[in-house]
């Protein structure tokens, strides 16, 4: 079988090596893309990223990725955002002031705030997710059991305006949205590339969806 090509947007925020390795393991060919012009050549694209919301959002705009990503998504192709890449899907982030995201999904990105000192920030480690009973959720979590654990590392969480896009939730001090599967938009707060065999399964579900 032909190896399907997946674009990984490299905009300088975070370690893309892990995503590349995981995609190779899932029998896909990972193509690192650092120019907005090129993503239209791919049927599936991953927007990775770790770190702070606003410098990443600013950088995407500066490089012209914001428009390219919107055009790409409007053409019906699949985009998967991981961690910060996922947060950038939303309208607004509140890290060091008010900052605009890509606004692909209406919603906000807020910081965890807890009174309980046992709830450490960042939220780091393996947490289990409750998978929504929807057709979209079943695409992302195909052949994965409810309450399976995935690897998280983040201090901010997303609040979508419309809960219909939510494909899983997770609890850490409060219940938050751990993934969305919304038409051709896939996003997860957890890192599938760092979540063992179950995480690899999500990535191969993504690759399969792209090859359909």
């Amino acid at each position: 079988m032909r190896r399907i090509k997946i674009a990984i947007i490299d905009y300088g925020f975070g370690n893309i090596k892990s995503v590349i390795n995981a995609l190779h393991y899932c029998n896909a060919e990972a193509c690192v893309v650092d120019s907005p012009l090129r993503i239209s050549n791919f049927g599936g694209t991953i927007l990775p990223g770790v770190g702070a919301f606003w410098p990443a959002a600013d950088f995407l705009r500066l490089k012209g990725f914001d428009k390219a990503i919107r055009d790409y998504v409007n053409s019906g192709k699949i985009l998967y955002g991981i961690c910060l890449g996922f947060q950038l899907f939303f309208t607004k982030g509140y890290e060091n002031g008010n900052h605009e995201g890509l606004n692909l999904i209406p919603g906000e990105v807020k910081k965890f705030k807890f009174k309980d000192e046992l709830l450490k920030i960042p939220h780091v480690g393996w947490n289990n997710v409750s998978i929504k009973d929807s057709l979209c959720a079943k695409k992302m979590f195909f052949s994965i059991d409810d309450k399976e654990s995935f690897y998280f590392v983040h201090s901010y969480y997303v609040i979508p305006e419309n809960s219909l896009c939510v494909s899983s939730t997770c609890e850490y001090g409060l219940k938050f949205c751990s993934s969305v599967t919304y038409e051709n938009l896939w996003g997860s707060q957890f890192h599938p590339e760092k979540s063992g065999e179950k995480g690899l399964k999500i990535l191969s579900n993504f690759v399969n969806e792209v090859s359909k």
Partner: protein
Amino acid sequence: MLGIRLIACLDVTNGRVVKGTNFVNLKDAGDPVEVARQYYLDGADEIVFLDITATHEGRNTTIDLVKKIAERVFIPLTVGGGIRTVEDIRNLLNAGADKISLNSSAVKDPEIVKKASDKFGIQCIVIAVDAKKVEKNRWNVFVNGGRIDTGIDAVIWSRKVVELGAGEILLTSMDKDGTKNGYDLELLRAVSSSVEIPVIASGGAGKIEHFSKACESGASAILVASLFHYRELTIEEVKNYLKSKGIFVRIIS
């Protein structure tokens, strides 16, 4: 629910795991790539690769090994030992490390913590604190493999590295390390209750009970080296034990 992480640590010198010759099903018991892959399959939640090689040639071997491990191990990989510059950090992250652990170099030049976390994000900066008790309720930070007392209070230092941009603290008790008498719970509580970020407990595990005690004393994760290397306990045994104590852990099916 967030699980307690069980982290397997590999001490590597000149491209070989120095502890751990008792693995049964490995072709090469001392090959870090094989050992890391086995820990991954056994259900470790993370891998720490501690480079105890001092030479320059050794460092190139490390980059190469990190690349190979990252291709076959799909859980977080932390690399520590001998990292001095932002360039060192970049090279390791590009090779596939997810986090890097700084120890002596952070004490010598605290600015490196800030520079690195501004550049790569706090999620990849782990600060290793080697602490030794000097009087009641006071532990000092030791560097250079525990040989030099910096005179710095470990609790104050921990707070300081959080301000500088650390994402996690890897706390090793020099008093307990190698004793198998259990973790230094007082030290663990003192540091963990003073910082907002997760603390990884290290040094002193000998019995399975020690793990639950560390969890109850504020550890978000537990680092294990020799116990797993010599198969005195397996990852599965420790996780099943913690689960039986009502502590949430990730069990692989």
